[in-house]
């Protein structure tokens, strides 16, 4: 499994500071609701006063897909398992699932967030693994 390159911009700088330190940062409003990292308004109460707060790293499986590549080497087309994970704090995240047999997956399975880099000069990307 590989992740691709990504560079930070102003909107993602704080988030990638977090991934570099092994943290998945969520947005949190004054009322304590958590939102997905790209949110600019609270997805529960629409507050625009969002701070950052680290997720604990646990999640459950909402849905999954196996994306098939077109290239057919001897090993067959490349396959990537993508999932939606529901973080224990509530928000959802979309990324790869590392090291899992897709035939064994079921909604509600426990996941945890890990971090991978394309190369050393790229930002660390959150991925899921089976807990």
């Amino acid at each position, binding site marked *: 499994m590989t*992740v*691709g*390159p*990504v*560079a*930070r*911009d102003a*909107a*993602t700088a704080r988030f990638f500071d977090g991934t570099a330190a092994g943290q998945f940062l969520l947005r949190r409003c004054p009322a304590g609701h958590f*939102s*997905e*990292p*790209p*949110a600019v308004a609270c*997805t529960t109460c629409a507050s625009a006063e969002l701070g950052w707060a680290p997720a604990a790293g646990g999640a459950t499986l*909402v*849905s*999954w*897909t*196996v*994306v*098939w590549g*077109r290239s057919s080497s001897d090993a067959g087309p490349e396959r*990537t398992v*993508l*999932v*939606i994970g*529901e973080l224990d704090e*509530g*928000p*959802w995240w*979309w*990324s*790869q699932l590392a090291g899992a047999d*897709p035939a064994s997956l*079921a*909604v509600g399975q426990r996941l945890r967030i890990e971090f991978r880099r*394309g190369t050393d000069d*790229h*930002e660390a*990307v*959150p*991925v899921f693994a089976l807990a």
Partner: protein
Amino acid sequence: MIVGLGMTALGKVYDRTPADFAADAVRRAVADAGLQLADVDGLLTSSGVTGGISVDLQRDLGVADLRLLSHLQSYGATAATMVQVAALAVASGAASVVACVFADSPLRPGTSAGAAYGTRAGSPVGWWGLLGASGVVGTNPLYALAARRHMARFGTTTEQFGHIAVAQRGWAALNPDAQQRQPITLADHQSSRWIAEPLRLLDCCLVSNGGIAVIVTTAERAGGLPQPPVHVLGWAQSHPGHYLRRHPDFGLVTGAAMAGPAALGMAGVALTDVDVVQLYDCYTFTVLVTLEDYGFCGKGEGGPFVASGVLGPDGKLRLNTGGGQLSGYYLWGMTPVAEAIIQARGQGGERQADRHDIVLVSGNGGVLDHHATLVLGSAAGAS
């Protein structure tokens, strides 16, 4: 009411820009309506994945002093939305003859259809860059995640999706404008390659070049024009607003559940009055979940419903009678809108529905994020 429909050559038509297709489509629609370009005083434009269309289309058409001009974007819901806005404009007197047009030209000679849609331009930066770096590229995996969730919750199967693909190919065989007309079987569907499980190649729409325009005008102005008028009887939109955010209904319920009953209510008709149904079908799954949301079957019962023999030219539901986006052609929301007009007029040839007084049309944009419903009617349906 809708008095003109213009369709350019569709499909693998190369070396034409979206703006060229759009201008061609508007000219064809104006001619079909028995009008002149100078009669057009309103223009609504919509572009696809390749962009290239804007309010500059006014200049390309050489129409002066428009009273309504705007570029709209709610992705696959835009076509039905344009018809809604045009109907409101002519009802209010803001304009009297409004052209609504969509065109796109993503296909290039020698490249795959998937290549036209699967790429993200530019270097990977920011949140979009992160999504791509995570492996979430293009629309296929996002719809696959939606379809999988429906399957996991309700027991829906890939074979049930296949019934939709087979039925629509059956309709496409009767449509000379369709890109894929050779019959397929359920076995063909089941042996087509995986794109993003649980979606196979034959679960996914085509990619097409071309343009389609419609002309909307008042009942007064429609009198004496050559084509059977198609009445715009009802409309509604629904935009759930959770794209790439937590959404408990993701893959289970779409905006059609709100917009469908609202549009039928505005039209003053019941679902049982609907003669013909044209649903946005970017994937087979989209058809299945929209049928549930409109109430053709219960929530979660879409799989058994589509496998019950109700679909296709031999079934009793007149659904996506031109082959839809799966087998006909993919011009976003204009695919269902155009076939709805053809059917309401009674001009469907071999595929024409016997009863065609009330036609229900859906538009779907994003990943089930934007929905627009239209209820169209023949002269008899409007009375």
